[in-house]
């Protein structure tokens, strides 16, 4: 209905005045209501705790466990959040030999005597009371080949503190303690900051600090895991020292400065999560806390067969992307990625910079599927700890695990290509050599090769441009693997004989 325009101005004036008053009052109420419902500013600097007492350095040495405290776990595990608002965390530095790939013993420097260092989990507002003893001068029993003791330090990216006070280096035998409050949520790196920082990180001194938002994450998940990508720059020890019969490897300064890693790995181990996949089930929602340590390479983290429903850059839900295929992480960048496992299968985590993946940055999420359905994995399985002694077979194994696992397995059923268990019995050495040298030529002329192409849905084996030496190494590895199977069967027969079966 239209309002009459025949009102006198005198008569109209009070009505108009009242309307305006009501409108203003209404607006005021509305604004007040909005003010009450507006969420508090999570990043209000005036409410952040930025004060902390000076660090204390002493010569009182911790002699107990190398790490302790609430909220610590070891990759890929991440324990649920401990609710205590004050967390006491102790991570000591050590020097030790670790195995970064089968048969590759590496002289590492550590936090908490492990690489990566322990996973720390806390929440915004928590107070962290940290202590660290430099125990690089402690020699592990039986080992005389570790790096000389040196100064170390701790740099928490999760903290807001004076680096000169809290992150200064301490000498072997010294202990530093300091505290701070967590102000921002995130997936933060921690690392040794002692010069040359590049060397200290490349030698293994890093870990992840997960800080949850004060109110928790906005989603619920069925599984949580930590994936830390990092590079190793290893070369055989000049003095040809050995550890448990395997050649010792030390930091390669030239490779390090040229950013040409010898290994790029997830969770400190070449293809580590291929042998020990992360379990999940179809339909489950998985959350990965991903950190790219570097020290010098970026990561294009991708999980084959899924799309990241949510990606929180640097692990902060306020930095959200939806429907991402890959998350690009520079050195010391982190992210939380969440996705649903759509169906049974083996979901492959890779750095989609495939040069990095081929150096070992690869892992699996095992959501069931073919290997389980076959029901005889155990029969063919090669013990995970088995490593050939022959250097050619060792090289062949490393190459196989780097380059072939996407299409082949040994004893875990066919993938895009055949299961290679027993391949040296099925094919002659000459046939295998020709096949590996030039599969396209074999497909033109060889009946077995043609039959195989048909069996595997017309997916041809790509020419890998292998040298003669590389082909020899692959075959040596396949021969070794087949010998292992025979040994297993022989042992089982012997056991059955003993038991009178």
């Amino acid at each position, binding site marked *: 209905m239209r309002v009459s325009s025949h009102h006198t101005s005198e008569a109209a004036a009070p009505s108009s005045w009242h309307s305006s008053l009501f409108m203003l009052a209404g607006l005021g109420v509305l604004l007040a209501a909005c003010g009450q419902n507006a969420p508090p500013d999570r990043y209000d600097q005036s409410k952040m705790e930025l004060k902390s007492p000076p660090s204390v350095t002493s010569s009182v040495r911790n002699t107990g466990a190398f790490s302790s405290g609430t909220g610590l776990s070891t990759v890929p595990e991440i324990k649920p959040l401990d609710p205590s608002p004050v967390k006491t965390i102790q991570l000591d530095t050590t020097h030790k030999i670790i195995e970064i790939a089968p048969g590759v013993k590496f002289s590492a420097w550590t936090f908490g005597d492990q690489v990566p260092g322990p996973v720390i989990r806390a929440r915004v507002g928590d107070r962290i009371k940290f202590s660290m003893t430099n125990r690089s001068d402690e020699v592990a029993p039986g080992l005389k080949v570790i790096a000389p003791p040196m100064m170390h*330090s701790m740099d928490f990216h999760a903290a807001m503190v004076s680096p000169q006070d809290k992150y200064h280096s301490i000498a072997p035998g010294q202990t530093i303690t300091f505290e701070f409050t967590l102000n921002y949520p995130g997936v933060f790196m921690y690392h040794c900051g002692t010069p040359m920082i590049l060397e200290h990180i490349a030698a293994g001194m890093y870990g992840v600090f997960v800080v949850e938002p004060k109110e928790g994450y906005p989603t619920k998940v069925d599984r949580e895991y930590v994936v830390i990508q990092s590079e190793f720059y290893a070369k055989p020890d000049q003095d040809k020292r050995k550890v448990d019969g395997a050649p010792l490897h030390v930091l390669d300064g030239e490779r390090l400065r040229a950013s040409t890693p010898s290994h790029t790995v997830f969770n400190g181990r070449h293809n580590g999560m291929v042998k020990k996949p992360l379990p999940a089930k179809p339909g489950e929602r998985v959350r990965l806390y991903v950190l790219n340590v570097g020290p010098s390479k970026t990561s294009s983290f991708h999980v084959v067969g899924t799309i990241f429903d949510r990606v929180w850059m640097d692990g902060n839900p306020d930095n959200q992307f939806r429907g991402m295929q890959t998350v690009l992480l520079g050195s010391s960048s982190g992210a939380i990625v969440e996705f649903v496992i759509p169906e049974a299968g083996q979901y492959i985590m890779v750095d989609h910079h495939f040069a990095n993946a081929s150096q070992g940055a690869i892992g699996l999420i095992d959501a069931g599927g073919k290997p389980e359905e076959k029901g005889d994995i155990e029969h063919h399985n090669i013990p995970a700890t088995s490593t050939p002694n022959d250097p050619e077979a060792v090289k062949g194994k490393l190459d196989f695990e780097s380059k072939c696992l996407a299409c082949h397995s040994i004893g875990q059923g066919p993938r895009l290509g055949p299961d290679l268990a027993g391949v040296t019995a099925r094919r002659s050495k000459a046939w295998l050599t020709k096949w590996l040298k030039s599969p396209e030529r074999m497909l033109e002329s060889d009946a077995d090769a043609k039959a195989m192409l048909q069996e595997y849905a017309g997916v041809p084996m790509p020419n890998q441009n292998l040298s003669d030496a590389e082909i020899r190494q692959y075959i040596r590895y396949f021969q070794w693997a087949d010998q292992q199977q025979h040994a297993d069967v022989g042992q089982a027969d012997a056991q059955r004989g003993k038991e009178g079966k």
Partner: protein
Amino acid sequence: MMGKLWREVVIGTLIGGLASAAYACGYCIEDKIAAVYDHAVVMRAASQKHQVVFFALEGQIPAGEESRRTLEAVVESVAGVDKGSARVSVAGASLSAAFNPRRTAFASMERSLSRKLAPRGLTVAIMRVMDQPAELKPVGKR
């Protein structure tokens, strides 16, 4: 008696001032110490009741291995400094050396080192002294 005390106060103040200068260089002194910390030197010095001193180097230090070796030779030419104990970091702009405090007072060793480095346009600022392992102390607190 008073004269000796006065001299120690003056040296202490001077050293304190230099230590502050080291703090002002842009990153912490413990990192500079780490660049020239050699555990074997520390342990050898401790077994002989010698001390290890850590200095910041100020001035233009020529880059390269030869420069490092030359500077180490200069440090070891100072009376009282243990042979084979000098460590110089060109990148870290710092040096360390073990010395026998019974043979040479710290102040005279520091003066001698300063004199020998002066023609190269370099000065030293004391950072810490280690009179036993795991004890990095300011000079005044020994």
